[in-house]
């Protein structure tokens, strides 16, 4: 076990606490860099989606995980970023310009949402952000001169410095990876600055933060703006990846998926955003695999346990029917959310920390280290 001696504050907020980080993240980065050469093009395409979802996850993590403000309206921010890109592209604006413009515009909208949200907490904030997302969705469908309404908009192939970057090629993957890496490093730096500490203080106790001299309103609006801006940047990449956008892509369903990203990843660390994004994006290929192979496997098991060929065939048919039923994905999402909330509220990253601590402290690991506190006295209502 490694002991870190922190003798001053600079030691505490180091980006790289010890050399182990350089090795492990170096290996990860090396793997990600050679990924397009070793993985199939389908998996690389999924990795691009992981990057985009992870960016939204990072944005949402700043707002929900670190400032404690829930939002079920992030699909709207993604939509604003995507539509800004599609609109500006029509006028031959170069990519770097509309990329930043998408982020900036979404950030401004985020700040505008943040101001009214100052008065709201808890459930009211959730409902208000849902309403905001609905209104944006409706505006996108009706403002036909700009958004082409329900027909949707075609997004041309990205061109960077005169070079075309097709959305399925490795260059686009590297672009997304670079943007994600920059976002994560930038966010890590933000979180160890006074702004980040103010965010965490607001999350832990608004009253305490205020009495320590934190300008709660200012930092909440900042948090909304930064979170929205990152989501907007992800939206630009999202538009290019799909090469076609229409209002019905940015529904409440998508906002819930973003929340699932940070919930499953673990809403207390940026690792969670990435892990959650990997989980959410990779569940699709996994379900396809289940659909194709599971009936055979189960019938095979039944056959080994002495079922005759007719029964095995029946089992095969039944399992195949269940596995290919419509809406199985939704049911699995639902079960996964409930199971994570009930049994692993700290998410995948929390599970990783627990396993790590188990081996570090072996045989002295205590389950109670990560136990959640229950509060039965009413608190949220009297704010």
């Amino acid at each position, binding site marked *: 076990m490694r002991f870190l001696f922190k003798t001053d504050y600079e030691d505490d907020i180091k980006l790289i606490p010890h050399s182990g980080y350089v090795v492990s993240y170096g290996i990860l980065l090396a793997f990600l860099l050679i990924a397009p050469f070793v993985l199939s093009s389908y998996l690389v395409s999924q990795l691009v989606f992981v990057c985009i979802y992870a960016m939204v996850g990072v944005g949402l993590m700043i707002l*929900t995980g670190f400032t404690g403000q*829930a939002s079920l309206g992030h699909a709207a921010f993604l939509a604003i970023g995507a539509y800004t890109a599609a609109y500006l592209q029509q006028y031959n604006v170069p990519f770097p310009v509309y990329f930043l413009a998408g982020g900036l515009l979404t950030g401004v909208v985020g700040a505008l949402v943040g101001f*009214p949200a100052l*008065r*709201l907490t*808890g*459930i*009211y904030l*959730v*409902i*208000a952000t*849902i*309403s*905001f997302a*609905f*209104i944006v969705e*409706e505006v996108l*469908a*009706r403002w036909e001169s700009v958004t082409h309404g329900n027909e949707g908009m075609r997004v041309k192939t990205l061109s960077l410095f005169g070079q075309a970057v097709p959305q399925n090629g490795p260059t686009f993957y590297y672009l997304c990876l670079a943007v994600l890496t920059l976002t994560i490093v930038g966010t890590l730096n933000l979180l160890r600055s006074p702004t980040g500490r103010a965010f965490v203080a607001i999350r832990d106790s608004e*009253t305490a933060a205020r009495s320590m001299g934190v300008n709660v309103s200012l930092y909440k609006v900042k948090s909304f703006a930064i979170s929205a801006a990152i989501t907007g940047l992800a939206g630009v990449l999202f538009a290019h990846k799909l090469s076609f956008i229409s209002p019905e892509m940015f529904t*409440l369903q998508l906002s*819930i998926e973003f*929340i699932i990203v940070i*919930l499953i990843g673990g809403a207390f660390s940026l690792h969670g955003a990435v892990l959650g994004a990997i989980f959410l994006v990779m569940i699709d290929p996994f379900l396809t695999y289940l659909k194709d192979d599971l009936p055979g496997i189960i019938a095979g098991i039944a056959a080994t346990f002495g079922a005759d060929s007719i029964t095995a065939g029946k089992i095969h048919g039944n399992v195949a029917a*269940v596995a290919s*039923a*419509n*809406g*199985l*994905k*939704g*049911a699995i*999402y*639902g*079960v*996964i*959310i*409930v199971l994570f*909330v*009930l049994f692993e*509220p700290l998410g995948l990253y929390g599970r990783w920390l627990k396993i790590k601590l188990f081996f570090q402290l072996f045989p002295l690991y205590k389950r109670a280290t990560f136990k*959640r506190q*229950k*509060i*039965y*006295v*009413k*608190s*949220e*209502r*009297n*704010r």
Partner: protein
Amino acid sequence: MLDFVQQLVSGIALGCVYGLIALGFVLIYKATEVVNFAQGDLMMLGGFFAFTFIGMLGLNYWLGFAGAVAAMALFGMLAERVVVRPILGYPQFSIIMATIGLGYFLRSVVGMIWGTDDFKIETPFSDGVLRIGSLVLAYDKLSVIAATIILCALLYLFFNRTTLGTAMRASSENMLAAYYMGIPVKRVVSIVWAIAAAVATAAGVLLAPITFIHSNVGLVLGLKAFPAAVLGGFGSIPGAVVGGVLIGVIESMAGFYLPQGWKDVAPYIVLLVVLLLKPEGLFGVHMRKKV
């Protein structure tokens, strides 16, 4: 003028359904401070139970109605026991996510069992109209309004005149204190969920002749019931119904008098305005946090 009254009545009828769903939100919120995002889906499931009893098994309408309500009350208790009780007392956000997950699950499972088509329940009020002069009112809409009034009266009596109702109000004020006073809080909470699911089922069955039931109906209507609950003050039972009726009327008027597209966003615009100007709603009580 005639158009206005027609729109008003259909708005009120729709609003009553919102109000009944919002009533479920409020009941559960008051008792456990949990916001049940799956309330609309409970309504949808209740509708499908009723469809199974009446449409597929061929039971009498009233018998099927009662059966669906009873089955859903049990289901509400089960959902509370399995999903909500283990995480009571944890941050509200986790509980919201759990109920969102429950809603997802219900929608998909219903879609898998009954299919994703639209279904219709034959009711005694399905066709037939009441004519007053040249005003034509459909029975199905009037039945929703009448049933809402009856249900509200019953709930009012229940909460104010019975021991169990008083116990529920006590545990919603302060769970810990109620527990010390000897109220079996866990059982009370599970009965609250049963009532909320039963009310939602009633809404679903009444709604069935007006808009058909399909697996996504709960999501659409459940989300419209939020503005209703917030408008009424999230914690006031009469407020929920009044808020629901207001939202229904606003939506129906917006659909009639304003250009296309306003109908769907009008409830949410109202919601945002209410949240900004009067966050405690029309009937809500403003409380301050003690530090």
